């Protein structure tokens, strides 16, 4: 073991440093902030910061919904479809049935959990790859959404509910508190609770988890249910922000849902979650998006540039975390 120690020491010190991958993200973020505050006068205005932080609030939840499923080494391509279905469920309960806000929220979350359970049960019981399962259920959820609403938004929402989406303390959006609370809860879940640890164990090494007596199937279902709840929470915040429960909510989330956790340092192979990384990644993406607007980029090209910049950021964070370790293709 001495030999091993001598040989590995240099490698270990380096990887210790790169373990805190969010240090690199924070640097990227700082550079973006400095550039933008020099280039644009209105960038640091309260209202602009509010807009940025509000989009961070939803992007973190969307990313967390994906991260939870990535943590078991799977994917959830129906995050957006669940967000949309939850948004119209919540809106529908308020508008069509006139029930109170809290009941609508409970109903919405129940719908999100049900969608997640649907995904999880199919994946766990059939063993079919989550990629194809969730791409199909995304279509199911969207179809249900459009069928129920006839593609018409619910506009008659509770005034408190819609006001919440616009409310801010100086530059800080109130919906940010929902995100922060949720993410603290998620961190506690993954780092401190038995079920959370077992989910990560399944993602880290499924056969080891099985021989350790962990109920693998049930943990897969749990991960999908939590993903559904988080996607649902994002859908409701989105509706609150728009002031209407739009059926098309969630249709633009796919890229964000993967970019946030991947830039944030979550491994696609499973077994890891990154809470601070999600916030930093969502901030970087929101800043890029906001910068394009401030720099007067033709809106028709925003999508193109956003895609390229996210690709660049993923590459940069990949390099930042990998540079310390020797290049090795063979193990």
């Amino acid at each position, binding site marked *: *073991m001495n030999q091993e120690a001598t040989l590995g020491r240099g490698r270990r010190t380096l990887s210790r440093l790169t373990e805190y991958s969010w240090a690199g993200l924070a640097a990227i973020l700082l550079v973006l902030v400095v550039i933008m505050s020099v280039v644009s006068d209105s960038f640091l205005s309260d209202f602009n910061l509010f807009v940025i932080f509000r989009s961070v609030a939803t992007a973190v939840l969307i990313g967390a919904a994906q991260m939870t499923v990535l943590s078991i080494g799977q994917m959830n391509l129906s995050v957006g479809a669940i967000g949309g279905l939850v948004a119209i469920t919540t809106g529908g309960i308020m508008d069509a049935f006139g029930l109170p806000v809290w009941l609508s929220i409970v109903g919405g979350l129940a719908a999100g959990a049900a969608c997640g359970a649907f995904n999880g049960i199919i994946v766990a019981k059939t063993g079919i790859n989550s990629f194809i399962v969730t791409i199909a259920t995304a279509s199911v959820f969207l179809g249900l959404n459009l069928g129920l609403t006839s593609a018409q938004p619910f506009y008659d929402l509770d005034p408190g509910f819609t006001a919440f989406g616009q409310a801010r303390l100086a530059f800080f959006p109130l919906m940010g508190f929902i995100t922060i609370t949720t993410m603290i809860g998620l961190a506690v879940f993954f780092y401190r609770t038995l079920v959370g640890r077992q989910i990560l164990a399944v993602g*880290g*090494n499924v056969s*080891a988890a099985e*021989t350790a007596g962990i109920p693998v199937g049930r943990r897969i279902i749990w991960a999908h249910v939590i993903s559904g709840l988080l996607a649902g929470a994002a859908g409701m915040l989105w509706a609150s922000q728009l002031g209407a429960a739009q059926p098309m909510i969630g249709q633009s989330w796919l890229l964000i849902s993967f970019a946030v956790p991947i830039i944030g340092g979550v491994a696609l192979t499973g077994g890891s979650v990154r809470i601070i990384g999600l916030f930093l990644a969502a901030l970087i993406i929101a800043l890029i998006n906001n910068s394009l607007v401030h720099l007067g980029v033709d809106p028709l090209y925003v999508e193109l540039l956003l895609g390229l910049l996210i690709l660049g950021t993923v590459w940069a964070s990949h390099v930042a975390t990998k540079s310390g370790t*020797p290049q090795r293709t063979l193990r």
Partner: protein
Amino acid sequence: MTEQGAEMTLEATAISKAFPGVQALDGVSLSLKSGEIHALVGENGAGKSTLIKIITGLYPQDAGTLRMLGEEVEFHDPRGSIEAGIGMVPQERSLIPEFSVGENILIERMPLRGSVFVDYDTINREAAHWLEVMELDIPVTRHASRLSAAEMQLVEIVRALALESRVLLLDEPTASITPHEAAHLFEILRSLRDRGVALLLVTHKLEEVFELCDRVTVLRDGKNVASAEPLEGLTRDQLVTWMIGRSSQDTDLPARPARSEQAALEVRDIDTIDGVEGASLDVFPGEIVGFYGLVGAGRTELAHAIIGASEITGGSILVNGQEARIGSVAEALGRYRIGYVSEDRKGDGLFLAKDIIFNVSVPLWRRLAGRLGWVSDATERAIATRHVEELDVRTPSLDQLVGNLSGGNQQKVSIAKWLAAEADILIFDEPTIGIDIKTKEALHELIWELAESGKAVLLISSDMPEMVRLADRIFVMKAGRIVAEIENSRIYDEISEEIMKDLA
């Protein structure tokens, strides 16, 4: 943990299990007493793993019964087996990489607060206690992904101990640890035995069986050949005869012609990014050069550097006297004809989900490809057939998926691949690890014949008898440096003593 009397702790009676096309177990029995170390041996494919999987609740048996302390038990999943008091140290890595050592040790029964929250204080305290019992100096809070292979293996054993199991199953526990660590492990296993635990040791190393075990059960072709025979008075020959159905013939390998003048491969003062420092060695055509060292000494790292798979930071490599700049594995093979038979057959060496033809011809594609990159099936098949026959791969057909072959035959396919690619310099990295006696013998002869036919062979091995048997010269590596070059006299005691002295 201390059951009185010599009643059977675990008793498996007349266990049968069939898989499509194979009767894996046919009326097999195994009985473990409290306070014994019991060896379970047999060739690859004899049914050892299947039996273990039934005992640990991974497979249901088709027929037969399991009893714990005289009572019939039925396991539907691993949890049932763990709760009945059966601990398992599997052969494959089974730690959760992102978890701490402590959490890995207590994963089967995480201490909780309020039945929801994981109690890390208790985890760290209990895990530290078990590490101390094992006299291991590994911090409980270290991530499992940062452990060495040997440390991982030891943590897995600590984990099984922490269950305070009545029965402890160990599947090849010394496969990736050093002799020193193994000696330490044996001490712990003996003390567990003295405390009344029933231990089952699955191993290919007969030395371990005789050194450590009290009784032995032998399986061959899914049947009991010997059941709980006392090892006292048993000879090695008898045991081998049970295992392979005939007595072992360590055939004498024929003498080989003297080596030629020009070294096929010369490594001069190589430093690598992953810890090799100032390593020099040379291999001549027609020669087998051994490369001995403990796990983690840097042998595989040096091999990877030679084939262009990892970065070299200093020194030079000469192939046939010419300086070689090997930038990639493709170049190593295509330009310098260096082939590497990986230690990690499943990870690096083979495409398990593909057939034999595919596996053998992968490195050939570039050469075989005609215009437009077209590779003809017939050419592929012809070349694969020749080499597969040459190496005597046991397979019903060339279309067989490599994943379905036994370990030894998989190894032959990965060698066939490099022969087909006409490699002149062959690097074998632990070629017989986890391979049974019969196939091992065949592989030894094969490696010998390859050298005889003029190939330059670099043999990396931690198996001392193998090294002494095959190598002409032996380089010894320690902590990233080559510390000795020994002319092999083929006298085991002399050479092993010298190597051990160099490693000390």
